[in-house]
């Protein structure tokens, strides 16, 4: 009997897994890749091109994270998720970081136990309708069928907004942006509602984008940003400062084109030198290499460049900087100092 007990306790000891690890940074370094949770496909933000490569605003921030930690922007494993699966994927450890048009809210931060690391896109929820309906305001949508991505904040905003305005509607729940597009174009719903950036991105993929209008009402604040697991401060710091590095780089005029030169011939601006690791030990404090921010800018450019390349006015998405201009240019994009 004693032997039996011994065997059993040995079995228990063998199986006793610790579960959710606290040190994601060490894990990522050991794995040699960043598991980055993105959406299943939103034009301009995260989508695969004809060759199957991930492209877009969110995808670039995934690459920036990999460049900072591993020195190689291609060491990213893209993990796709729907609005409903994303937090489970992150919290179960299948993903290391979430760069996926995710709105920072109180409940998600406090109760769902995510840790939001800043805002990389200030958005708001809008409505898109076919022009031929002749609707000019969301208040005229009484009785409409509305396509809505299920499990998102937009779903809750929609219910709140229509209830407070006494508007009746039929919600048509949809899993992914692609399905929403199909159902909207087939006329299963009259209206598609999601973040205004997402609407612009979706409209850009239509055959006749001009036949559809965005209504003037923006019914919510949707600060979109990266999230990590609650209670992993070291890794959270890394993600937060990757975002801050791109913003600071734009502010200081560091671009993909001139960053190598700035590292080779350090100038007199100490903040640029600290950012790029030619001065001070900021990298080591984060547990990264000295040149982590240099690698980030070299890989994807500064915030402005990422924006212009993927979703700016010259792309089919055609979004203006608006709220997402630097604070010094009338926007909200702001980074704490590198000091």
């Amino acid at each position, binding site marked *: 009997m004693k032997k039996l007990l011994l065997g059993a306790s040995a079995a228990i000891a063998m199986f006793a897994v610790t579960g*959710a690890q606290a040190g994601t940074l060490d894990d990522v370094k050991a794995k040699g890749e960043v598991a980055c949770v993105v959406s299943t496909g939103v034009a301009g933000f995260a989508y695969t091109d004809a060759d199957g490569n991930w492209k877009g605003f969110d995808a670039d921030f995934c690459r920036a994270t990999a460049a900072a930690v591993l020195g190689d922007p291609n060491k990213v494993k893209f993990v796709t998720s729907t609005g409903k699966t994303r937090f489970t994927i992150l919290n179960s450890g299948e993903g290391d970081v979430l760069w996926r048009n995710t709105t920072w809210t109180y409940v998600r931060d406090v109760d769902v136990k995510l840790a939001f690391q800043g805002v990389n896109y200030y958005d708001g929820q809008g409505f898109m309708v076919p022009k031929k309906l002749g609707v000019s305001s969301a208040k005229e949508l009484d009785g409409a069928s509305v396509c809505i991505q299920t499990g998102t904040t937009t779903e809750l905003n929609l219910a709140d907004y229509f209830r407070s305005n006494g508007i009746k509607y039929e919600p048509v729940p949809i899993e992914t942006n692609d399905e929403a597009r199909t159902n909207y174009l087939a006329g299963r719903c009259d209206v598609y509602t999601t973040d205004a950036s997402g609407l612009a991105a979706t409209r850009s993929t239509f055959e006749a984008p001009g036949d559809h209008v965005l209504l003037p009402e923006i019914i919510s604040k949707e600060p979109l940003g990266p999230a990590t697991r609650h209670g992993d401060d070291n890794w959270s710091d890394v993600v937060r400062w990757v975002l801050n590095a791109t913003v600071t780089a734009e502010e200081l005029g560091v671009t993909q084109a001139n960053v190598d030169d700035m590292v080779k011939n350090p100038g007199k601006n100490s903040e640029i030198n600290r950012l790029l690791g030619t001065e001070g030990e900021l990298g080591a404090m984060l547990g990264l290499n000295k040149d982590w921010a240099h690698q980030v800018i070299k890989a994807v450019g500064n915030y402005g460049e990422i924006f212009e390349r993927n979703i700016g006015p010259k792309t089919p998405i055609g979004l203006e900087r608006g709220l997402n201009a630097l604070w010094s240019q009338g926007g909200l994009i702001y980074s704490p100092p590198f000091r």
Partner: protein
Amino acid sequence: MSSIDMAGGPPERNPIARLWYDKETRSIIMQILTIVLLLTFFGVIINNAVENLRLLGKTFSFSFLWTEASYDINQHLIEYTSTSTHLRAATVGILNTLLVAVCGIILATILGFIMGVMRLSPNWLINKLVYCVIEFVRNVPVLLHILLVHGLVVHALPQPRGLPDWANFGDLAFLTNRGLFMPSPIFEGGSSAILIAFIAAVGFSWWFKRHAKKIQDDTGRVLPVFWVSVGAIIGLPLVAYLVTGMPIGWEVPQQSTFNLRGGMVIRPEFMALWLALSVYTACFIAEIVRAGILAVSKGQWEASQALGASRGLTLKNVVIPQALRVIVPPLTSQYLNITKNSSLAIAIGYMDVVATIGGISLMQTGKEMETMIIVLMFYLIVSLLISAVMNWFNQRIKLVER
């Protein structure tokens, strides 16, 4: 190897080995070992879950069920708004699942029996046609059927604005890509009399059937049970309706800016799920029915025909009752399949229990463990209930040996 003694004498074993070679002790040891391993396994799983929740700083509690759900559900059989609780949302989802499961079971059974009998038809064309349909349908995954039907409804049917005449049934019912709109009854005072009349008619039919059987047993006279029952079930409520002064009004769907308004609607999501699940499962049931009928020995057919019974009568009164004994057990698992497959609703946005409590509520509250436990328990209970009912039915129809 102390167990084999080459010297030929009785093998000498140390006490522990002797325990092992004793059949009874060994079986006890094995059982203890199995139980310990099993408990260890579950212990580790539970411990792991508790530990992970603690590391994430999450608590385990069902109190979120009483907080506001704040999302809307398009199809709700009971009163529901976005201010209702998560518990209410779960109930709405559960009812939607049960609705599609019950409707699916009924339609699949009817279709399955018809196709199964047709499969045995001596008519070559019917026989082979049904054979092709069955083989095609049941060899394509059910998810594809669901997506196909949903796609057909949404893309092929006309939109509610500018509805063509063929989709407008006398300005009463309308077939659109947002569903089949139909008039809904409005019950006014006195309509309870109609319900009472209906219940009375059903009761009468049941009594009449027993009475007719008794007369047939006694005198051999056959009474028209079917037509009398139909007459009673339709006629009695109709009389009550007229006597009480026609208390049921109808709300007919009306055109509005975006949609048809008022009345009842069968949504494309329900249609797709219901039809696809029913047809898919019906093909399996057809094969089960065919096997069941073939299992009845040929002598039964011949004996019945020797008594002068027609093919239809033979099938109804001689063959099917015996075939049921073979049909019912596999039929039970098909019913379970329909119920469980209804969770594929998620692919087309039908708001079943997985989509509501196991989907949106899970997302909004972050209570993965709790919501999943609710969903699992629901499916478990429903499956066990279906099994229990079918086992009871199986007991009733089993061959009574004398």
